């Protein structure tokens, strides 16, 4: 065994060394890969914080301490009991950020699920039904694409008085059209392919043909689309909360924190800059990972 190992490493290793090194350098040279790794790590961290949530909060996110108002973060004259400082009511920013991440991730995940399910379903319906139904669905897609969605979200939410469930549904509706377009296109081409004809000729129902055979085939492309859509979902929720019609106090989200901190910019920049930075990194990471996934798994989407 030892002799075999020795022989194995002796002879081929010398010619093999240069190409392996070159490919490693090539990978390192594509700093995209490092960026993607950093982005994945950040998304993982955000997800972990969202899941663990209350276990990580040093204080309650609603606990006020009016003696400790406007404490700056560590490194700017703050102390260890409030590492990221406090806001205008003396609430701990770190605890509020952890809670806000939880809420923002919840909205992003639920909203994405609603949009993906709705859009994929309508895409299937359009591709299966063709004719007027398809025409109507694709026109809804065009309408949605053409109009500034924020304005409609604003109208709907303000009239429902910032209801949390309505907010999730509105955020969910934002993304449906991209799944609908993608699914319709892929199902149309799948319907032309041999396997669908084969399964159908065996006499299986539509649910079986589309659910068990077509859907698994297009799932990877849908998952890539899901990652690509994530930033716009995050940005929509945070914009609405920033305008004061999204998440309502005492609940808080990253956008709501930023919007509330806007009134204290002169006194305490950290109240809005810290959540803003996290929103930015969150959506940037999702962008980077989405682009990477697209290039890697689905060159057609390019």
């Amino acid at each position: 065994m030892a002799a075999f190992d020795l022989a194995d490493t002796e002879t081929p290793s010398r010619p093999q060394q240069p190409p392996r090194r070159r490919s490693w350098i090539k990978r390192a040279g594509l700093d995209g890969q490092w960026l993607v790794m950093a982005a994945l790590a950040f998304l993982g961290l955000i997800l972990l914080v969202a899941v663990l949530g209350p276990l990580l909060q040093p204080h309650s996110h609603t606990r006020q301490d009016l003696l400790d108002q406007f404490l700056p973060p560590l490194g700017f004259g703050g102390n260890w009991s409030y590492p990221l400082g406090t806001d205008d009511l003396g609430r701990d920013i770190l605890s509020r950020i952890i809670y806000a991440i939880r809420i923002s991730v919840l909205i992003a995940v639920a909203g994405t699920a609603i949009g993906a399910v709705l859009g994929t379903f309508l895409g299937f319906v359009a591709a299966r039904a063709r004719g007027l139904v398809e025409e109507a669905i694709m026109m809804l897609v065009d309408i949605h694409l053409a109009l500034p969605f924020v304005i409609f979200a604003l109208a709907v939410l303000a009239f429902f008085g910032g209801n949390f469930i309505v907010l999730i549904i509105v955020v969910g509706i934002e993304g449906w059209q991209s799944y609908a377009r993608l699914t319709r296109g892929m199902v149309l081409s799948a319907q032309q392919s041999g396997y669908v004809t084969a399964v159908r000729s065996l006499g299986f129902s539509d649910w079986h043909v589309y659910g068990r055979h077509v859907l698994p085939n297009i799932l990877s492309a849908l998952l890539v689309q899901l990652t690509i859509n994530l930033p716009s979902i995050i940005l929509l929720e945070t914009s609405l909360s920033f305008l004061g019609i999204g998440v309502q106090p005492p609940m808080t989200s990253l956008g709501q924190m930023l919007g509330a901190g806007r009134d204290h910019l002169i006194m305490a920049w950290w109240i809005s800059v810290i959540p803003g930075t996290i929103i930015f990194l969150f959506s940037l990471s999702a962008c980077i990972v989405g682009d990477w996934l697209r290039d890697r798994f689905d060159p057609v989407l390019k």
Partner: protein
Amino acid sequence: MLAFIATKLLRSAITMLVVVTAVFVVLRLTGDPIISLLPLDTPADILDQYRERWGLNEPIWLQYVRYWVAIFNGDLGRSIFSGQDAVKIVFERLPHTLLLGGTAFVISLVAGISFGTLAALNRGSLIDRGVMAFAVTAYSLPNYFLGILLILLFALELRWMPAAGAETWKHLVMPAFTLGMSSAGVIARFVRSAMLEVIRQPYMRTAAAKGASVSRRIAWHALPNAAIPTVTVLGFQLGFLIGGSVVVESVFAWPGAGRLLVTSVGLRDFAVVQTMVFLVSATVIFANFMVDVAYGWLDPRVTVTGKQG
């Protein structure tokens, strides 16, 4: 070409109808403006008098018919708060929004096209990477956060620029930059990939073989062809800019129509919200109609039936 325009026109008209109807129904189903207008302890008969005066006690379909009849008479309703003509209220604010949106659009176009072209011509270089990094950053940076950072740095720290209002040209700089940035990123990405596609074409080699200079090859041969796919994205960017102006106007206290929308929505001022949505939809739908026509004109291969879905 005529059939193409006619089909597009019909689609635009149906789109408009769907949007106006949807907003009309949503507004009426989700809240009574009279309750937010009058004090909480107002007797019920006075509430009813108000509803009657504004035609709100009629069945919704009758209100809807009346609404359309009024629109064809050029009347989009009155603000329930000031009693003023809603169109007049919106038009007072509109110049500010047009100034902000127009400047932002020019910024995003100039930055997007030049960055995208630069990146495509230097593919794989540091410039290319820098442009791509800019594009992703600009897209991921929420415009309200960029606005707040700019206010912190240039208004509060350095005191070069005013933080809010719309009195001088200085007030325009930061909001327009904020609004234009994310669009610039999207356009740069699009122009880059369109240019990469174009410079591979045989006619580019022919132009080089004829001895055309680099600048002529780019400006005369490459850019017009790269413009074809880019035009579509511009239509969508307009909607994006209008949506963004709502947020940006709020950040910089810019007295435009976007802020009017946010306040009117809060007050349940039906006529003003409906007028805003009507005008915005009409503008965006018209712009996209023009984009479609321009597309058909720029690229003769596009036909009604052959358009990719």
